[in-house]
């Protein structure tokens, strides 16, 4: 009973589990724990024709689109949470080089839920009366067999791979996540492969001390990557705060294709490691983002 370690480098994990043309779900906790490091590695490897799946992607999807990795988005919202529109997305969509499937947070959550539960669709009351039906073939109107009510059926989504950033994981893919969970639980269960990027790699014993905190069964995880600060500039509960300036500055850094190319070279292509990234970020900024006020959870007992 010596299971194989799933620990590998970020570059190896992306190489193995994110082939060109793959359907990838990311940013499943919405504004928090967005797997930026993994997304940047996808850009460095210049993956092509990806379909990106997620509720609100904040600026991660925009970067992948700007780098030419993306053929299609299946998302509720693609933009910059605190500045509004995101420009690579706009350019690609307006030029017609990006296909978009328009979801709401509820429909994307039900699509992944259906995928997780192994059923071909889930019913919802949302989207009725909206034009989402015109730009999303995954939605159909149905009639409830019990009540006769009109409902929206949301077709299941089963991504090829889920990329999930967590606080801590053991090397076998048993991972703790806390904070708002978004659609992470269903995204993991719906996906054929799972890549975990984690702030810390810890012992199995630490994870086993709290099985309710585990985000998805470890036996379904394919790769575990140690990625300290791997969600920056988004926040990670227990590790660091949101770097608002990064989001605000990105507005101008992505406003034109030229500006974005420059940003990409500096922050992605020239960055070969997590150390490179932290050096670029600078000590002062890092200290500013670190937690200043701590609140430890009251322990619970799993004894017998």
């Amino acid at each position, binding site marked *: 009973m010596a299971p194989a370690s799933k620990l590998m480098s970020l570059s190896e994990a992306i190489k193995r589990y994110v082939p060109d043309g793959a359907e990838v779900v990311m940013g499943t906790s*919405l504004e928090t724990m967005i797997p930026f490091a993994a997304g940047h590695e996808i850009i460095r490897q210049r993956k092509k024709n990806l379909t990106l799946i997620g509720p609100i992607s904040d600026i991660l999807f925009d970067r992948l689109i700007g780098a030419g990795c993306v053929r299609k988005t299946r998302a509720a919202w693609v933009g910059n949470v605190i500045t509004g529109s995101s420009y690579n997305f706009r350019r690609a969509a307006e030029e017609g080089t990006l296909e978009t499937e328009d979801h709401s947070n509820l429909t994307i959550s039900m699509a992944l839920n259906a995928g997780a539960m192994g059923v071909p669709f889930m019913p919802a009351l949302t989207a009725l009366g909206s034009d989402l039906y015109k730009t999303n073939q995954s939605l159909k109107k149905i009639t409830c067999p019990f009540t006769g009510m009109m409902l929206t059926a949301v077709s299941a989504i089963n991504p090829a791979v889920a990329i999930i950033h967590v606080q801590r994981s053991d090397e076998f893919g048993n991972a703790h996540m806390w904070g*708002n969970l978004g659609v992470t639980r269903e995204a993991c269960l719906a996906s054929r492969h799972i890549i975990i990027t984690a702030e810390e790699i810890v012992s199995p014993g630490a994870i086993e001390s709290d099985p309710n905190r585990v985000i998805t069964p470890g036996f379904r995880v394919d790769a575990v990557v140690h990625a300290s600060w791997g969600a920056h500039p988004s*926040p990670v509960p227990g590790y660091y705060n949101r770097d608002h300036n990064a989001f605000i500055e990105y507005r101008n850094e992505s406003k034109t294709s030229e500006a974005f190319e420059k940003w990409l070279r500096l922050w992605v292509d020239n960055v070969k490691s997590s150390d490179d990234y932290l050096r670029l970020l600078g000590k002062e900024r890092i200290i500013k983002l670190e937690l200043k006020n701590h609140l430890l959870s009251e322990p619970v007992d799993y004894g017998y």
Partner: protein
Amino acid sequence: MATDTAGYTLSELMVTAAAREIADGEVVFVGMRLPLLGFLLAKRTHAPDAVGIYELGIVRDSPAPEPILTMGDLPNLFRAKWLSDTSDVMGLLQNGTVDVSFIGGAQVDRFGNLNTSYIMSSGKLATRLPGSGGACDLAGLSQRHIIIMAHEKHRFVPTVDYITSPGYGNGAGWREKSGLPRGGPSAVITSRGIMKFDPVSKEMLLVSIHPGVTARNILDNTGWPLKIADTLIKTPVPTEYELKVLRELDPEGYWTGS
């Protein structure tokens, strides 16, 4: 139009108006940006027992311990009442638990339909906007919802190019026919005034004008002949206490600066 010389900014006026739409004890589905501030302001003033629900999977009933710029900021998770899944809070929305929600928009029409997806020009895509996020869900499933947006003629159009978030469609009876279980917009708070909806025809009605703005100015900046309510009032300005709280909530004026 309100300016700093009036002692408050236009955004402060809008956020205050939004806050006043929340009654104490209500369950509020809180959106991004100005609505987030409006909810926090209400909590700190007249609606201390309001409960806030956030699409990220957060329920909280106390103000965050520190100013926040967005709902995912860690202080908004600190001592939250519940951290959970998006589908859990969407369940609370869909099953009718949410009293009121707030959404912004790029384009609105006379029946309160909102577009945050596609702006067309001569039949071709002119601007791709970010999309629904939770807005379509909130517009369809809250007991009522409130729209907050800039009041410009190109945004206030007779018919939106795309319905991201359903209002009253083409008027009375439309929501019922569409299968929506409840709700509809109850107010539109803009940079010039406040609109409500005729209870029978479901058409937008101007009910309140911001200080320094005229009805003519509003009509000129609305893309259809906006109807005016029988009783038209001037939007009450923020109180000193509301301004004090707002400036604590947004100390650097990121959202409410002039």
